[in-house]
């Protein structure tokens, strides 16, 4: 009887062990799966958090280098960046550029992308940042009101805005000069010279379509024919600032003269000279011609006026403003023609882009009067970035 009881107990124990084993197996499997899920989720969250930290650590700064006309993209963040795409005018280009911490990438203003995209999915604006700095450096006058109120103060432009001396003789300079009488329908081409120093005369005759004609070259004329009473053809108003001189396109060197046949138009087009950023409201162009009308101390009858045009290189649209001209004749026959023209965006509705500037000097010359020389001392641009780098001295 005792042995029988023990056998039943054994069987119950075996059964119990089996049942517990099955339950333990089930519970452990469920627990394992749950812990595996928790571990996997935790790992995923941790990896994503790490990624977001790196992503948010990506920083760039865009700096405009006015000396070299470059937009510089600097990695100022704490992680290395890989640029995988750049967007320009609504189109993207695949690239792969590593931008390590503290390093920079250069773009010219014209080729700077609108946006760059990093491998971590950050999008950074480049061109707009650069343009805003260009505008700041170009001393943008933001409203017409500011512009008008700035004039009486007396300094409507600064050295940075000036195209003169080293900038006007830039290697990138392309100035197309021509003249026509009112009876003619097209310009006759002319050339320019600049008396840089006693032994160095520079000459310029440019065709925009031919880059080899850009810039100035040394010139040794077969002979020099100066107007009577002129010692230095490049500073006829003796103010210590050299001017560029309009000459005939053929040798020998002689300033171009214009005799009395009614209206004569001398047209100077400064090709691709300025970039006007989007945020510019008003572009103002200033200029100074120096004209020599010899008369032996007797007043000569010459009417002088000028007009200025902006011409877009993108679509060829042209905006013209007569502006204002002040003439200051002297007893010696030297006349300074100083003027300016304003282009408020509200009126002209021009767009951001690269522009040429034309200045047309209109001389109404009475019969028997001769204008012996026409020089340009400076051009100044407010509201646009001057694209011609100075020629190294």
């Amino acid at each position: 009887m005792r042995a029988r009881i023990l056998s039943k107990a054994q069987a119950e124990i075996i059964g119990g062990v089996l049942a517990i084993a099955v339950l333990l197996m089930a519970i452990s499997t469920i627990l394992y799966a749950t812990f595996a899920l928790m571990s996997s989720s935790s790992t995923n969250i941790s990896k994503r958090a790490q990624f977001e930290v790196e992503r948010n650590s990506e920083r760039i700064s865009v700096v405009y280098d006015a000396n070299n006309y470059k937009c510089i993209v600097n990695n100022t963040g704490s992680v290395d960046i890989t640029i995988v795409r750049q967007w320009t005018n609504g189109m993207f280009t695949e690239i792969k550029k590593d931008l390590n911490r503290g390093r920079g990438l250069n773009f010219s203003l014209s080729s700077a992308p609108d946006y760059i995209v990093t491998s971590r999915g950050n999008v950074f604006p480049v061109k707009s940042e650069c343009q805003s700095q260009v505008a700041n450096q170009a001393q943008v006058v933001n409203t017409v009101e500011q512009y008008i109120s700035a004039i009486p103060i007396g300094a409507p432009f600064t050295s940075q805005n000036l195209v003169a001396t080293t900038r006007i003789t830039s290697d990138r300079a392309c100035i197309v000069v021509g003249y026509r009488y009112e009876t003619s329908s097209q310009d006759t081409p002319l050339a320019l010279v600049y008396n840089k120093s006693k032994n160095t005369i520079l000459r310029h005759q440019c065709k925009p379509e031919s880059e080899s004609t850009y810039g100035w070259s040394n010139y040794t004329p077969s002979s020099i024919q100066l107007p009577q009473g002129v010692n230095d053809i490049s500073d006829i108003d003796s103010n210590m600032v050299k001017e560029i001189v309009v000459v005939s396109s053929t040798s020998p060197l002689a300033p171009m003269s214009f005799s009395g046949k009614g209206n004569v138009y001398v047209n100077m087009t400064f090709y691709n000279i300025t970039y006007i950023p989007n945020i510019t409201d008003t572009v103002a162009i200033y200029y100074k011609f120096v004209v020599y009308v010899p008369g032996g101390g007797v007043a000569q009858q010459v009417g002088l006026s000028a007009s200025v045009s902006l011409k877009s290189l993108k679509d060829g649209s042209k905006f013209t403003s007569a502006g204002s001209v002040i003439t200051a004749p002297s007893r010696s026959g030297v006349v300074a023609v100083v003027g300016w023209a304003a282009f408020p965006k509200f009126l002209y509705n021009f767009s951001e882009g690269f522009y040429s500037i034309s200045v047309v000097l209109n001389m109404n010359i009475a019969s028997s009067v001769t204008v012996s020389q026409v020089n340009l001392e400076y051009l100044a641009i407010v509201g646009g970035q001057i694209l011609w780098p100075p020629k190294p001295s």
Partner: protein
Amino acid sequence: MKSVVGQGEILSVVILVGVVLVIGTALTALVVPQVMRISEENNLKSLLHTEQSNLVLYREYENSTHIFLGVLRVEPGNTRYAIAILSQDLSIDAIQSAQPNIQRLVSFPQSSSSMTTYSVRRSNVFYIFGGDYYPLPSPPRQDYINVVYVPEDIVKNYVSQGRPFVVAVNKAVLNALGVEKARIIFLVQVSDKFYEVGEWAL
């Protein structure tokens, strides 16, 4: 007499062990499917968590007609996403409405392959709401939606290399289809079901 008693004991032990085995097997049969189901659910959750945490969506570029979404899989992998474009209330399937010119609505500018679309039962598409998955509601006579697969060359050249790719969606076409506010839903396929792993609202 002694041998009869011994036989009886053995018999009762065998019967008892048999009963225990039957009960144990029945219990196992009851528990194992539950364990399998829980384990499968966990595996699916784990997969979806992984895909959700790996997907980064961002606006790369936008103009008046298009939005270019940047899509990045943080950890390089071979996940082939499917994309559904639905109205805000999930009732209008823009991809189906744009047929047969789906390329006008959605395109992959970096791909040279043609797009593959797939018609899938709404009840097999699960979207996330409040952290949980729910099957897409089925308006009358709209049992299916169309999804567009990310092309194979995009998977090969971008997703599997951890590089961001671009999906272009034409907002003008969406407006023309009467979808003013759209949900661009990124899905992954598990067997015959599609699960949302990321979404961009337009």
